[in-house]
Each structure stands twice: as structure tokens, then as C-alpha cells.
């Protein structure tokens, strides 16, 4: 199953890319598992301040499905 993943701000800097498509294996379809997978893949720091949006809605649990857009968001800085 293919997932579109987007990275922003300091996270995009750490991953070295703004987006990619990831093919999920069996067993990594829960949001928390997917976060752990990406953090490990890129050796990301600062997990405590990262938020995840699934299809543009902030989410910290639930399942990731085929075709979802998952975004990794560092702390907001608007204003």
C-alpha cells in the first residue's frame, strides 16, 4: 500500500526532502507505528514536538490507509 508522506520545516531539513511515496509492509499501518518507522528511517530528533496530520487533519492514533497523505509537522510559527 502506497502512502504519500510530506515533511515540513525542520523535519524536511532533517529528511532532506519535502515529500516521498512510501510503500508500507505488513504490520506498519497504525499511525504510531508509522511515526516510529519514519523517525527511525531518518534518525529524526525531537519527537515530543512533532504533530502528524493524516489527510490534513491532526491525528495521534488510528489507521493509515492506502492513498492517505501523511504530513510530519514541527512546531508552528505563524504570526
Amino acid at each position: 500500500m502506497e502512502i504519500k508522506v510530506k515533511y515540513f520545516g525542520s523535519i524536511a531539513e532533517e529528511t532532506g526532502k519535502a515529500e516521498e511515496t512510501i510503500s508500507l509492509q505488513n504490520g506498519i499501518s497504525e499511525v504510531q507505528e508509522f511515526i516510529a518507522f519514519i523517525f527511525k528511517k531518518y534518525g529524526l530528533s525531537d519527537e515530543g514536538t512533532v504533530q502528524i496530520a493524516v489527510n490534513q487533519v491532526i491525528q495521534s492514533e488510528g489507521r493509515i490507509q492506502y492513498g492517505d497523505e501523511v504530513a510530519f509537522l514541527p512546531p508552528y510559527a505563524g504570526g
Partner: protein
Amino acid sequence: MNNKKTKKVFVQGAISPEKIADSIASHQSKTEIGAHSIFLGQVRADLVDGKTVKAIDYSAYEEMAEKEIHKIREAAFSKFELTCAHIYHSLGKVSTGQVCLFIFTSSPHRKGANDACQNILEAVKTSVPIFGKELFEDESYQWKKNEDIVRNRT
């Protein structure tokens, strides 16, 4: 296609005083308005570890940010006596002294305009995915964090 009813939020670079004047002028035909409240965020020359910020480079998860701002506007219209509400934020580089955020609310009476403006401001700071890189004079940088949010999560 979900975005088709959201209003344009992002402006490339700084928001000019002329844009603000044009927005004010365009409300002079709405004679039911008695009060406008405007908030402007201006990039501050903060001193961090002996280095001075010279600009902020803004980026955003644009589609989500537009949806969030659409929700913030809808909530403000349902909570306050409000005739109009406009929200603009910069993308890209904004130098110190320039405006990066422009919130403009209008109402028959001052309470509606003022309360809505402040409510929208807090919501923009805490729930809209906008990111900022504070650029220092020596070309180094740090990522800006709206402290409230970080604190709320920890």
C-alpha cells in the same frame, strides 16, 4: 476540490501597507460596519545568543493551512457579531520591520470586531501549520516555535 470555497490566505513575501489600505478602502461601501479591528504581526529583530534576526523565511503546509483558516473563520462567524473577516499570512522571506500577518475583522459594533480579531489571532498561532526559519545576520538560522503550542503539548 474541497478547497474551492476557501479564501486566498498566503501572500508571497511581506504584506505591504498598500494592501492593508486597499482592504480598508474596500470596506467603505459596507455601511452596516461601525468597527474594524486589525492585527498586524511584524518581524522583530530578536537578539538570540548575541545574533540578531534579520528576516524570517516562512513555509506552510498550504492546503491544510487554508482549511484550518477556513475553519477558524467559520467559527468566528458563529461565535461573534461579525460582518467580515480576512486573514493573510506571508510565505517566503520577510525582513525585520515588515508585516507577515494581517487579520482584519469588521462588525457593526466594537465588541464583535475586537473579540473576533483576538480569537482568530490565537487560533492562527496555535492551529495553522506555518513554519518559520529565523535568519540571522551571519547567515546562520534557527527554527521559530510559537512557545504556547509546545507548552500545551508537553
